[in-house]
């Protein structure tokens, strides 16, 4: 589980994440929602240990995020990040070298589903293939926490279905899955809880089925309600 306590991150005068206190518990698939620049990516990067907070803290299973948490947290950024001299195979080998929970078999099987070949060079991959590769290598890990930032971007319909299936396959009682995406509709059925962030602040956390039952709105509708009137 991941808990952020009054987590804040500033960039000069701009506050990207503003005192966010949030707990992600195992056994859930979360949707983190908010317009561009609302702080979702920054929050995730701090939870992944890639970015240091300005104040506040983020804990993984009670301990401050660090070397140990990186062992069990799989983070996938929106941007491509593989070394350009690597092939698809090299990327898998790299993950296998550093992450004990990485499964070469799962990787091979995901590559097949995504129609990616081992020999392809990362340098020459199209943006869609790069997006699929990032997912494949991330989901081939057996992590305790998965944080996927824009996993559906730039990906064709069938591959999106594959990705959703992959996400469902990994979700378990003892795992946290966090998805952040602008394609809200893609996440409606797969997620059970929505986290709404605006201008760095946590707005609300809702259980989706409850929201549908009591308010008769979809996640997308609630999104429009929250962000519709004022600037994101």
């Amino acid at each position, binding site marked *: 589980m991941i808990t952020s306590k009054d987590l804040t991150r500033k960039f000069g005068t701009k506050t990207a994440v503003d005192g966010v206190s949030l707990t992600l518990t195992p056994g859930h698939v979360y949707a983190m929602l908010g317009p561009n620049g609302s702080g979702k990516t920054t929050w995730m990067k701090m939870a992944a240990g890639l970015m240091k907070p300005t104040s506040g803290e983020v804990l993984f299973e009670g301990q401050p995020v660090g070397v140990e948490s990186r062992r069990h947290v799989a983070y996938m950024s929106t941007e491509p990040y593989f070394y350009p001299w690597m092939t698809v195979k090299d990327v898998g080998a790299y993950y296998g070298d550093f992450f004990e929970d990485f499964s070469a078999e799962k990787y091979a099987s995901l590559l097949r589903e995504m129609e990616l070949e081992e020999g392809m060079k990362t340098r020459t991959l199209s943006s869609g293939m790069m997006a699929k590769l990032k997912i494949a290598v991330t989901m081939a890990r057996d992590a305790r926490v998965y944080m996927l930032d824009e996993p559906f971007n730039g990906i064709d319909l069938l591959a999106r*279905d594959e990705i959703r299936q992959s996400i*469902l396959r990994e979700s378990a009682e003892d795992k946290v899955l966090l998805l952040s995406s602008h394609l809200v509709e893609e996440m*409606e059925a797969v997620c059970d809880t929505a986290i709404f962030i605006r201008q760095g602040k946590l707005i609300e956390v809702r259980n989706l089925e409850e929201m*549908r*039952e009591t308010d*008769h709105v979809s996640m*997308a*509708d609630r999104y429009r309600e929250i962000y519709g009137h004022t600037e994101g």
Partner: protein
Amino acid sequence: MNFDPMIPIWLQVATSIKQQIVTGRLPPGAKLPGGRDLALQYGINPNTAARIYQELEREGVCQTQRGLGTFVTDSGETVQRLREEMARGAVSRFLADLKGIGMNREDAIELIRKEDNTDDHQ
């Protein structure tokens, strides 16, 4: 399956399962997929999937036997009751729709008869 995101998803899947039971695609006593498999099959969150069997069991539509799985009820009467419930539901929705455009029950019966005839000719 395409979901209406404004309606609880568990409800939509439960309805789908009931339809399959009522049409015999899931015969009495048939084994239903486990919670996780159900989630994967329909592409839904596993917590949502868990709710479905809870509800169906409450309605007597299925039974869970520890260690063995969840099974469709083998009571033909229950299936029949279910079929009637669903039919009644469909009828009342139909009537409500027609009322919305100002037609009554007699118009409804007339429409059905006409519709039925054209069906025979297809």
